[in-house]
C-alpha cells in the first residue's frame, strides 16, 4: 500500500513538474547526423548516481566529434568516475548512409577502461549498425571484451549489443524527450544486463544544447527478476561550430 501511495505521489509530482516546466525543459535524443552547418562538436557532461559496489559516485566526461564529410565522422571521449575509481577512454569512427527518411550508421569503437578498485584493465571492441528514424533508433552490434586482473586475462565470447530509443518529437525538433532500453552506455558494454531510462535534450542559444539522462541498471536479466544494481543521471552541454 505504501508503495502504491509513493508511486502515485511520485507520478503526480513529477507530471506536474515536467508539465509546468514544459516551456524551458526541452530535451535531447541525440541528433548525430551532420547538419551542414558545423563540423565540430564538443560535449561535456557530469554523471552521478549510486550502485551497490561503490554507493554514491560521480564524475565528468568529455567528447569531441569531427565531421570530416557529411558521411564520415570520428570522435574521441574520456570519463573519470571519482568514487568508482574508474577511468575510460574510447575512439569511434562512423559512416552514415542516408536512405529515404532514415539514416543508417555503421560504426567501430575501441574503448579502454581501468577499474582501479578491482585493478582491472578492460578493452572493448565494438562494431555496430544503427537504424535511425524520425522518432526511433535501433542499434545492434557485436562487442569483443577482454579484461585482465590478478595476473589473468580473459576474452569473453562475442557479446550481442542491442539498443532501442523512442522519442516523442521528431529527432531534429528543438527539444525532445524519450525512452531507451539497451545493454550498453557510453563507457561500458554489458551482456544480457539491460539498462533503461529516459533521455532529453533542449537547444540553447549560441549553438549549445542541454541534454540529460536518467538511467536504471537492473542486475541480471529480466529472467532473474532483477534487483537494482545502479541508478544514475547525466547532465551536460554540447557546443558545435
Amino acid at each position, binding site marked *: 500500500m505504501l508503495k502504491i501511495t509513493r508511486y502515485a505521489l511520485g507520478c503526480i509530482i513529477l*507530471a506536474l513538474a*515536467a508539465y509546468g516546466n514544459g516551456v524551458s525543459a526541452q530535451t535531447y535524443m541525440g541528433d548525430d547526423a551532420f547538419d551542414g552547418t558545423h563540423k565540430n562538436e564538443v560535449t561535456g557532461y557530469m554523471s552521478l548516481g549510486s550502485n551497490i559496489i561503490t554507493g554514491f559516485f560521480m564524475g565528468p566526461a568529455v567528447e569531441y566529434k569531427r565531421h570530416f564529410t557529411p558521411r564520415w565522422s570520428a570522435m574521441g571521449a574520456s570519463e573519470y568516475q571519482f568514487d568508482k575509481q574508474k577511468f575510460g577512454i574510447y575512439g569511434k569512427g562512423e559512416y552514415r548512409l542516408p536512405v529515404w527518411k532514415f539514416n543508417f550508421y555503421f560504426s567501430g569503437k575501441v574503448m579502454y577502461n581501468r577499474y582501479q578498485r578491482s585493478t582491472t584493465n*578492460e578493452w572493448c571492441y565494438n562494431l555496430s549498425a544503427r537504424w535511425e528514424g524520425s522518432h526511433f533508433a535501433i542499434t545492434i552490434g557485436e562487442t569483443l571484451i577482454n579484461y585482465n586482473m590478478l595476473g589473468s586475462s580473459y576474452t569473453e565470447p562475442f557479446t550481442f549489443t542491442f539498443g532501442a530509443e523512442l522519442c516523442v*518529437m521528431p529527432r531534429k525538433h528543438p527539444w525532445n524527450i524519450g525512452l531507451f532500453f539497451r545493454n550498453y552506455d557510453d563507457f561500458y558494454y554489458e551482456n544480457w*544486463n539491460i539498462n533503461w531510462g529516459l533521455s532529453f535534450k533542449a537547444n540553447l542559444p549560441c549553438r549549445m544544447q542541454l541534454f540529460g539522462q536518467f538511467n*536504471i541498471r537492473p542486475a541480471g*536479466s529480466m529472467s532473474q*527478476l532483477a*534487483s*537494482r544494481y545502479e541508478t544514475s543521471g547525466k547532465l551536460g552541454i554540447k557546443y558545435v561550430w
Partner: protein
Amino acid sequence: MTNISFRGSAALMVAAVIGMMTSSCDKVSPTGVLVGTTSVDDRVKMSLQVYQDTYDSRLDIKDAQGEYSFIVGSDSHLTTDPGRMDEMQSIFLTHGDLFMAHLGDIADTKAEYYMTLAHSMERGKENYIARNFHPLYDDDSQLYISHDDLDRLIADGQISAYGDVDEMPFDALLVLLADYDIEMLTDDDIQYPFFPVVGNHDITHDGWALFTTIFRSSTYEFTVKVAEGWYDQYIFLDSANGTLGKIQIDAIEDGMLRTHGINVRHTFVFTHTNVFRPSSNEFASTYAREEGYYILKKLADWNTTIAFYGHVHKWDDRWFGGVRHLTLDSMSEANSPDAGDYLVRVTCHADGNLSVERVRMNYVAR
C-alpha cells in the same frame, strides 16, 4: 493544442519512468514490478538473521579431521519427478560424503514442486539418519545417538554393539553419555547436511517463501575442522537476481562472512549466477560488469580454492586469478535428459591436496 498534447505526453513519460524509479526502489525490472518478488536485499536480511541465530550451534562441522569429500549439484529445476534429486542424495549417502551443496534453481517455484522437493529431502534425511544414527529403545522414541559416538563407547569397551544401549536402564545410560559428553538427539537436532543457495527460478512468485520453508537461508558460512586449529571454510552467497545486492556486499566488506581467529586451509564459495559465459549465444545474464570484477577480486582476496556456479546450464572449468572456477551443468532430467556427469565431488585429502571429479547421474525420466 498539439503542443500541449506533446508536452502532456512528455510529462506522463517522465512521470511514469521516474515514478517507477522512486516507487520500486530495488526492484526495477518491469517484470519484477509486475511479479512482485523479493529482492536480494530482502532475502539477505532474512538469511543473515538466520545465520546469526544459528551460526555456532548448527552449521559448523567440528569433526572431519583427515580426508573427507563433498558433492555439488546445480539447477535441478525439480517439478514433479524427484528422480535426480533422490539420486544425488543416494550418491552422497553411498559414498559417505560429508555434505552436499546445491547451486540453486532447485525447484521451479510452484508449491507442488516444492512439496515434491520437501518429500525428497525428508526421504533423504530419513536415509541419512538410518545410516548414521542409532534410534534409542525403539523407532518411536525420536531420540538418536550418532554411530560415531557409539563407536567411541565400543572402542572404550563400554558396550560391544550399538544395540547394547537399548538394554541399559535409562538412568545408567544418561550417566554413561554424560561421562563421554555425548548428546542424545531428536530428529530436529540432526542437521541434514544439504547446503543450497537460491537461484533465479527459486524466487519468482512465492518461491523464496517456499525455499525458506525447507532451507531457511541462502547467505551463510560454515567451517569444517581438518586439524587442530585448522579449518576449511565454506561460503554460500545469494546471487539469484544476478547481483549480490547492497546488504550482502556490505556484509562481505564488514567481514561478516569471514571466520576470524582461525587458520583457514581451503575456502570454497558457492553461488548461483555464473561469472564466465561459455559461448556467444548464451544470453543467460551474468553480473553487471563492475560487480563481476568485484567478485573475481574478492574471491582472490579470500584465497578461494574453488568457486562454484550454476545458472547457465553449461559445464566450464577455468582458472582465473589463482582461483579455480567451476560452472556446473544442469542436473535436471528435463534439461539434461540423458545420463551424464552432472555432479562434482571434491575430496579434501589429509595432506591438504584436493581431487576434483565429475560424478555420473544415471537416472533417466520415466
